[in-house]
């Protein structure tokens, strides 16, 4: 853990996450997506009760750093089930009023918001996540 500047993780600045090149796609997608002017990474990716927030950071921070040390970065980085649940809670935290009718059902809401809102968090799937759309820089 000494090899990384771990304290940088405690901030709220999105460019912190983007310290790692592997996070480029997520960063670029967020930057060009609908939420850029409203939210930062931590608004979605960490729990917002004070204590759990830092607990989660420690846990996923460990994942991040070990992934680097052992050079086993997955080919395609994908959100884990647990972090999806955290994000879902955060969607609801902000959009509670809008979605209250969805939760009135006596049956459990068994889907993630981003099952439908697939491009809301990180921009257009297959477009902003991909390098091929660099139309402006080529030809």
């Amino acid at each position: 853990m000494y090899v990384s500047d771990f304290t940088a993780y405690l901030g709220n600045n999105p460019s912190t996450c983007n310290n790692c090149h592997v996070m480029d796609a997520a960063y670029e997608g967020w930057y060009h997506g609908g939420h850029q002017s409203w939210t930062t990474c931590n608004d979605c990716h960490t729990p917002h009760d004070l204590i759990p927030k830092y607990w989660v950071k420690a846990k996923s921070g460990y994942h991040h750093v070990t992934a680097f040390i052992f050079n086993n970065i997955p080919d395609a980085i994908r959100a884990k089930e647990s972090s999806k649940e955290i994000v879902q809670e955060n969607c609801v935290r902000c959009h509670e009023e809008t979605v209250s009718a969805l939760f009135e059902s006596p049956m459990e809401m068994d889907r993630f918001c981003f099952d439908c809102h697939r491009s809301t968090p990180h921009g257009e799937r297959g477009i902003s996540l991909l390098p091929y759309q660099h139309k402006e820089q080529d030809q």
Partner: protein
Amino acid sequence: FTGNQEPPTRGVEPLVKIAALEPDSAQWGINFPNQYSTLLKTGTNNTRTSYGGSDPISKLEADPRLVTLFAGYGFSKDYNEERGHMNSLTDVRATLRVNDKTPGTCYSCKSSNNPGLWDQMGMAAFDKMPFAELGTHIDEPIGCANCHEAETMRLVVTNPALAEALAAQGKDWTTFTRQEMRTVVCANCHVEYYFKGDGKYLTFPWENGTNIDQIAQYYAESFADGSFVKDWEHAQSGAPMIKIQHPEFEFFTANSTHYNAGVACADCHMPYTRDGAAKFSTHDVKSPLLNAEVACGACHTDVGYVTTRVKTIQDQVANTMSATQNAIIAAITTIEAAAALPGVNADLLTEARMLHRESQIYWDFIAAENSMGFHNPEEALRILANATDLARQAQLKAVEAAGSSEVLQTNGQ
């Protein structure tokens, strides 16, 4: 995982208590004005899309080949494009397919009075009663009671035939998830059915499973053991025919792209809509192409792209289906000609007729399904490929039965 949210209390305190199985949607509408007012809109939609929409044009005028395909059956007399839920009662009463012998079963999917009637008299008595007589107990089109339980507003299976068909497959719908119910609730009506026995008991042919091959097998077995031989006899070919009707549920759930990705009927046909602050499910159920921004836009950012694809897919399916129809009609006329010959081989003629029956079951599964293939494009096209092959085999078999190629009119091919 939504524990940080208030327990599921309704934002709005219910204004009135709704009686169990209440047929009158206006009562429910006092508590849920958005859902009620959007449901009412289904009564007046009359926009047309390339292959669907709510303009109740005659399918027989649009494609006169259907008159030949259904020769000898009510569907060759009157068969219209369907429209929104609020028209169900008007339309079933107006169709020329209904006559003196029509049983009550024909009301099964047309009214919110049904859950109450089934509860009182049971489905067997409901189905056995003549259509005209049962009609005196019915005054509501489709409504809230066809889909929801009044007390909890949960989505429920209301049609006893669906509960029985699921049970026959060993499935207990009360264990289904909410997302599953957003599809299953439509299966109360949007499914293939037949009338079993003298009591005209409403039955879904799902014992072997719900895909086309399993349904075709079901009807092959019911023919063999005599339990259900035919819907009608074809006037020209003499084959014992089966009419397939609106198998949206069976077709969509047969491994379609969207079904496998976890998408439900309600996601496209009842997308969330905003009125002021709150989102609710629009109850103005119609062609999603009429509000694609909302119906497809949440999942697909490029709505122009997906709607263009719908057109591409539907055109492909329509063209392929047209070729299938020509092949079936060629089979029909060849069988008819063969049957008219004195020396025809009776066994081979029977084989030809059974091939005609089989071929038309496959074709009608796509023709009667209302999305022109979109709900499951690959499945539509492989089914049509099979239907064409079977139709041509029927024609070849008829030639064999005749022994001579004279039965092949050039225009029949």
